[in-house]
């Protein structure tokens, strides 16, 4: 009785009940495919979020106005990074909680200038004041396109926010000082307005104001819900003059000198702004600082939890598939009790019977596991709910290993029962 023969017996046993075997296999198949696919979706989500965060720029701190004081609602100043929603990270002063905080100050160009002071903020490499105008209609020779985000800023913004120029050039400090109407457009804007025409040097009209295109940004790739390439960047005063007015800034993007100095930069910014905005003691700050690195860490942890959760849900279906195997093997053993008796009567050792039924159970789960892995990997090639899944090789190995283990584990009880049968009892079974 060698291993090959045990396997042959098992195959024959399974083939005798094709439908039943197929359905049991399906249970494992779904479990394994679900584990691989859901973990892939989790991983895909995690990677896409990480990319989006990285796309915002490295070593970057984004300062925006905070409405955490309440009373003004969360919808105001929609361009600002996560505003609104009462629960700020900073503890509220008791008096601030009782009503709107009228003395909250907006971010100004002077704030930005103060942050650029090398003496007060040695960890800061560059400071880019930003104003944003959403959904601006742009036209070029009869073609029109609504730019989802028009940014007015300083040249340092390109580096700080990780937006390199692919064609043409940036604008420079001169252009900012002179408030020149020049513009750098994103890939989506370029394609929609110009098609195959070279956009460099062409004049487009944005909200009725003519701008000359000097550069096209490098494509950053689609990032889920928002198209990061549907953007245009122009000198700060040019945008303020024609679109947003010279009021407050939407954000101040600050780049730290290095990854190690991001936290130091954040402290320096807080000190400077607290002083300028007159925030003392326990008072709630009227601005918030978004730290990319900290955000990335938080999000990593969150997505890891998310992935584990998805995997756990899938693992339950794998377990259910395993119980299916026990169930079907118990039925098989009961049904074939007489056959087991015959085999024992002609001298089958216990090991041979045990091996046969274990092999059947393991084969069910292994075939299910292999097919499930194939289905899982295949399914991961498609975009699911806006996420491109990323197959984690370890999840395939794990799912396959677990499915074989399930076959052995869930098959061993029925197989043992079969092997332990006394020949005469088994033969008397009808």
């Amino acid at each position, binding site marked *: 009785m060698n291993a090959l023969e045990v396997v042959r017996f098992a195959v024959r046993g399974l083939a005798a009940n094709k439908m039943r075997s197929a359905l049991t296999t399906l249970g494992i198949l779904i479990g394994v495919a679900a584990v691989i696919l859901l973990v892939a979706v989790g991983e895909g989500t995690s990677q896409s979020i990480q990319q989006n965060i990285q796309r915002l720029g490295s070593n970057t701190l984004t300062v925006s106005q905070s409405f955490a004081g309440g009373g003004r609602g969360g919808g105001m100043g929609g361009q600002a990074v996560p505003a609104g929603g009462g629960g700020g990270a900073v503890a509220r002063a008791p008096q601030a909680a009782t009503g709107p905080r009228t003395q909250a100050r907006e971010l100004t160009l002077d704030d930005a200038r103060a942050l650029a002071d090398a003496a007060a903020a040695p960890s800061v490499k560059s400071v880019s004041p930003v104003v944003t105008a959403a959904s601006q209609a742009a036209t070029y020779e009869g073609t029109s396109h609504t730019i989802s985000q028009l940014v007015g800023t300083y040249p340092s913004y390109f580096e700080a926010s990780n937006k390199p120029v692919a064609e043409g050039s940036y604008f420079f400090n001169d252009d900012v000082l002179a408030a020149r109407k020049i513009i750098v457009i994103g890939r989506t804007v370029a394609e929609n307005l110009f098609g195959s025409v070279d956009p460099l040097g062409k004049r487009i009209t944005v909200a009725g104001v003519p701008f000359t295109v000097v550069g096209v940004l490098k494509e950053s790739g689609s990032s889920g819900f928002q198209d990061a390439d549907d953007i245009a960047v122009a000198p700060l005063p040019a945008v303020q003059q024609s679109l947003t007015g010279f009021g407050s800034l939407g954000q101040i993007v600050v780049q730290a000198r290095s990854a190690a100095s991001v936290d130091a930069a954040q402290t320096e910014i807080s000190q400077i702004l607290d002083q300028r905005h007159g925030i003392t003691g326990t008072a709630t700050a009227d601005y918030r600082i978004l730290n990319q690195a900290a955000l990335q860490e938080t999000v990593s942890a969150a997505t890891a939890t998310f992935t584990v959760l998805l995997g756990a849900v899938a693992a339950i279906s794998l377990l259910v598939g395993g119980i299916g195997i026990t169930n079907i093997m118990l039925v098989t053993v009961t049904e074939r009790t007489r056959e087991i008796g015959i085999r024992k*009567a002609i001298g*089958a*050792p216990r090991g041979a019977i045990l091996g046969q039924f274990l092999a059947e159970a393991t084969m069910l789960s292994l075939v299910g596991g292999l097919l499930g892995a194939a289905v899982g990997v295949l399914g991961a090639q498609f975009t699911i709910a806006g996420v491109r899944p990323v197959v984690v090789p370890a999840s395939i190995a794990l799912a396959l290993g677990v499915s074989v283990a399930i076959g052995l584990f869930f098959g061993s009880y029925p197989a043992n029962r079969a092997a332990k049968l*006394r020949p*005469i009892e088994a033969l008397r079974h009808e």
Partner: protein
Amino acid sequence: MTAAPVLDVRAVGKVYGAGDAQVRALREVSLSVEHGDFVAIMGASGSGKSTLMNILGCLDVPTSGRYLVDGTDVGRLDERRLAVLRNRKIGFVFQSFNLVPRMSALANVELPLAYGGVAAGVRRARALAALERVGLADRVRHDPNELSGGQQQRVAVARALVTAPSLLLADEPTGNLDTASTADVLSILDGLNDAGRTIVMITHEDDVATHAKRIVRLVDGRIVEDRRQAALDGPPPRLAPAVPR
């Protein structure tokens, strides 16, 4: 042939159930069968024939007494050695054939050899020879459900003798067969006994019992008659006139 008897049953008893439902199927049965004998065990239904046969075939264990096969005390053997004993020394033929379903005649006959660890090539050759011996060389690829009762029983006989066991046990082998198939199977048994194989067969038909050299009669779990009707070292009685020696 003065070695230990093939079968040596010593004061074996078998009790089924407990309390009120207790049935004493065998009471102090002692029986010894020598090499080359052909024994017919007879008795009314419920007299304990099958119970005795299952103990002889090591399929069941007696409640009391000892049982030796070729001088080995079966009661002392562990599960693994018992399997080997059933495989090598005993061939069992059932009244209801008991072939493994969905397996060809050849595969059924090969099965005991497979469990005995015989190499695949040798196994096939021996299985084919056994099937030829029972006259089924042209039916080796058929599944049990494609064979008649007589053919199935002949496959079962081939399966029982393929390991060349010292003992062939048959529990009413012709009980489910018509007269023609009964004659086929009995002539095979005659031939096997003539070739030196020890056979113990259960039957309740007098006609079938005439094939045996010795008749043991059971009543209520006791041996009431043990009669020899042909010499131990001669041919089986029904074969004698046909094959002059």
